[in-house]
């Protein structure tokens, strides 16, 4: 590793001050499971940092609260283990519990944070499709104050986000789930665990009051485009429809078209496209079934 400085602020304001004072060349450090590996291994997706600002001790990043009308506040600094085991998340946002519960090993889940997973901006991030499908918003705090952004607008490309120098992602806001809804995330990996998603798919569905048509459908895909994406045309094709096997298959086929995968060491574009179809179809069926059961 090349030499760098390290700061360990104890509040959000102090962290923002450090970035302001030290200038360009700093990187926030959350759980470190991606960043420390990147610092060690080289091949950086970003210029090598001059200094790191630890987010570990910022209480503002550990927010966790549920409100009937506003939904869930989820601090960016919560670990995967904390997210995956949280009762609100498990009950109301199961796709997110699925995603957080799949990241690496027990050890990884104890270190990696949901904010770090999103800010690392890997197309394969396991919490990204769930957060997209659950329509999360990201709260960003920086020198110019605060802004709230739909997560979909957060990523610009692999390893690239809208965050400007000195800005931090502090928390996510997830709207309350509709009645008769369900959400799920699954990924495909060659091994049963420890791998990076070759394809990740999250779906969130809500049925109408009679349970006969799909009131709302959200489909998000990981590792099949430069950023995690929503499969909007597939969503539109299903919303308002009866969840027939044919309609579900059609939506899965559209999602396949929306994917723009590449071939790399983890899988070919053809494999990824194929899996988007298979997995989207399976997940929609399972989610609709769960929504029906309530």
């Amino acid at each position, binding site marked *: 590793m090349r030499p760098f400085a390290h700061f360990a602020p104890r509040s959000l304001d102090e962290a923002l001050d450090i970035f302001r004072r030290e200038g360009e060349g700093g990187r926030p450090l959350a759980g470190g499971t991606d960043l420390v590996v990147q610092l060690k*291994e080289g091949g950086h997706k970003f210029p090598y940092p001059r200094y790191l600002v630890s987010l570990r001790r910022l209480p503002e990043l550990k927010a966790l609260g549920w409100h009937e009308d506003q939904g869930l506040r989820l601090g960016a600094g919560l670990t995967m283990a904390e997210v995956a085991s949280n009762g609100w998340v498990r009950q109301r946002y199961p796709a997110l519990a699925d995603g957080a519960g799949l990241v690496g090993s027990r050890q990884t889940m104890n270190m990696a944070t949901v904010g770090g997973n999103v800010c690392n901006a890997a197309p394969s991030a396991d919490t990204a499709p769930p957060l997209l499908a659950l329509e999360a918003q990201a709260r960003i705090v920086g020198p110019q104050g605060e802004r709230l952004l739909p997560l979909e607008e957060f990523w610009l490309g692999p390893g690239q986000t809208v965050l400007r120098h000195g800005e931090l992602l502090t928390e996510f806001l997830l709207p309350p789930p509709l009645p008769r809804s369900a959400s799920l995330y699954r990924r495909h990996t*060659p091994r*049963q665990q420890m791998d990076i998603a070759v394809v990740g798919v999250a779906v969130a569905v809500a049925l109408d009051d009679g349970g006969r048509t799909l009131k709302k459908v959200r489909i998000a895909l990981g590792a099949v485009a430069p950023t995690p994406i929503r499969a909007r045309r597939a969503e539109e094709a299903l919303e308002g429809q009866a969840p027939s096997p044919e309609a579900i298959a059609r939506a899965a086929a559209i999602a396949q078209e929306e994917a723009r995968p590449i071939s790399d*060491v983890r899988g070919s574009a053809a494999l990824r496209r*194929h899996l988007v179809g298979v997995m989207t179809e*399976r997940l929609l069926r399972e989610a609709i079934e769960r929504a029906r059961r309530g």
Partner: protein
Amino acid sequence: MARETLERPRFRHVGRPVDRIDATAKVTGQTVYGDDLRLPRLLHVKLVHAPVAHARIRRIDASKALAVPGVEAVLTAADLPPHRTNPDARAQVLLASDEVLFYGQPVAAVLARDPYTAAYARDLVEVDYEELPAVVDPLEAMREDAPLARTAAIREADRSEEQGHITIEAQQEQAQSRPSNVSSTITFRRGDVEAGFAEADAVVEGTWRSAMVHQSYIEPHVIIADYDASGELSIWSSTQAPFHVRHEVARTLGLPEARVRVTATEVGGGFGGKIYLYEPLVAALAMAVRRPVKLTMSRREDMLAATPAPQAVVQLKAGMKADGTLVALQARVIYDAGAFPGAPVLPGCLLIGGSYKCPNLDIQGFEVLTNKVSVGALRAPGAPHVAFALESAMDMLAQRLELDPLEVRLKNAVEKGDPLPSGQPYPAIGLKECLEAIARTDIWRERHRIRQHPHRGVGLAVGGWLGGLQPASATVGLNADGTINVTVGAADITGTNTSFAQIAAEELNLPLEMVSVVTGDTRTAPYAGMTAGSKTTYTVGRAVKLAAEDARQQILAIASQRLEVPAEELEMEDGVVRARGQPEKQVTFRELGRLTTGFGARYAPIVGRGAITARRQAPGFTAQVAEVEVDPDTGQVTVLRYAVAQDVGFAINPKSVEGQMQGGAAQGLGIALFEEMVYDDKGRLLNPDLLDYRLPTTRDVPPIEAIIVEVPSEEGPYGARIVGEPSIVPGPAAVANAVADAVGARVFEAPLTPERVLRALGKLRD
């Protein structure tokens, strides 16, 4: 666990499950591995690894690296002390001096006060390369118009490592005079293969590919060297082969072997990948700077620049008669050696034609050079590749002829007296017994029920290994307090020292606690061959047994004098020698210890000596069965149950023998399903880490049933035969056969990734 045992005499220690004598130190973190050693004035090495697969080095500029505080030296090939170089032997090209032959080849060494400083400065060394065309794929490398992987032809290939694993007389032809990437070939012919195919009722053929894989010991390579002012060179290395390292280092650096001390530090896994590689380089660095020097490789460095196992392409055609008699085998076996010769062509050719009786054989083996890291041994090197082809073909034949795959194998399995393709006859072996044991497993007996499930299936495969041969020696000494010390020169990786304690305690009829076993360094230990080729218990165990018998005779001789009773009338138990029928006439080991070690002692110390040479192999065979579930839409294969039956001759410590069988089987599952070093078309390794080089995890490996089969060997201690290697061999074939059974798709390429399974099922377009 089950055990298929022939008649056996009663033993007190051998044959009984025993805890490893080193286990307590290991579970508490007290065991000292190479990277845990500390020496005063130690410098840490980081190697500059070439970022290109084939190039000429134009210039190396170390000025920026040397400017980093804490950096003591940056050395290139030109800066090393005078030494023997051989451009054809990987370990004798200490640093690339002119031509870089593979991505990751070391071209310079940075020495610094701590590893972080060394690594940081390493990245500042500037090397100017003139890139040359790289050849990456072995089949392309064989084409007439292929670029040459190296500009100079091979003259003196080093095959010592391979011989450590498999020792057999056979002709291996060196490279032809015409420049070519084919560095050696082997041919075995028997009968008339065309006539054989003509009489066959079914003929199958195919091309099977196996990926390049890495041993992936969890401890990367670590070597420390110190050259002191008196001219003594000391090396601590996580090597399986201390005496081999001593020999090679002494030869390379022009030192007498007597002045080179090699200590095999506790090996954190080797599997054939830690024989001998960077010891001469690290020793040369220590000689250059006159300070102790340590090279601890990172995982990435180890994956780039150690000695993984080769990629192979096996073209096989096999013919069988309707009654299941195998009548013809024709094979072209191609191993990709990487940038230096040393691929396991010989064992591959012997095993593809030596697992079944077959009157007509035509087997050709090719060793091909490419611009990839050169290969070394991995547990039964070369064998899984050919078993993948042969055992897949056996299932395909059985299916075509509507025969039971286990019966077909039993009918053709080699037995004692059957010839290898080289003509050499097999000694007593237990392949049939292994198949019979597998026939009794739940998985095999339930296979028809399992097949009712639309996506589940059962697959069977066998495999074997011939084993290496090297001489060995051991000493057994009696201490002043009556306890026993056994000294050997073989690195203990698999629990062999525990087995040696059992052997010595057995021969001296002692409680196990009275025996201690130590692996000495090359200056203090009696010679032993490398811990490779599954031969440590088979060879060193015999030496320990002889040494214990010798010590026993010496003890009896002194006791006979003391008790005035003929030695034949003495018996020995729990450290007491007494006259048979006269229990009052006795002398204890403690007394004998004093009588042979004390001041003015009357007798010379008791030192039992055992030295053997091994000339006959004791091959080991295994049969394995897998139950898998295949997801036909994602291509994912899940192993639900797995069983391994292996003939071990005699299990001196069944607990460690089972562990060897289960561990090898799990490695077989790794190469069957996940493991693959992926290179791009420029010869760059794309997955030099344990994230994308996928070792099987606990989630992927079900509990493995181990069934010990015991068909005694003719020379091994108590009938023991080779154990370590065979268990890796059948994995890819067993899984491929199970996948075919489950979903009807035959996969010809290992690992059987979801992508390959989907393609075999016809589910992927383009």
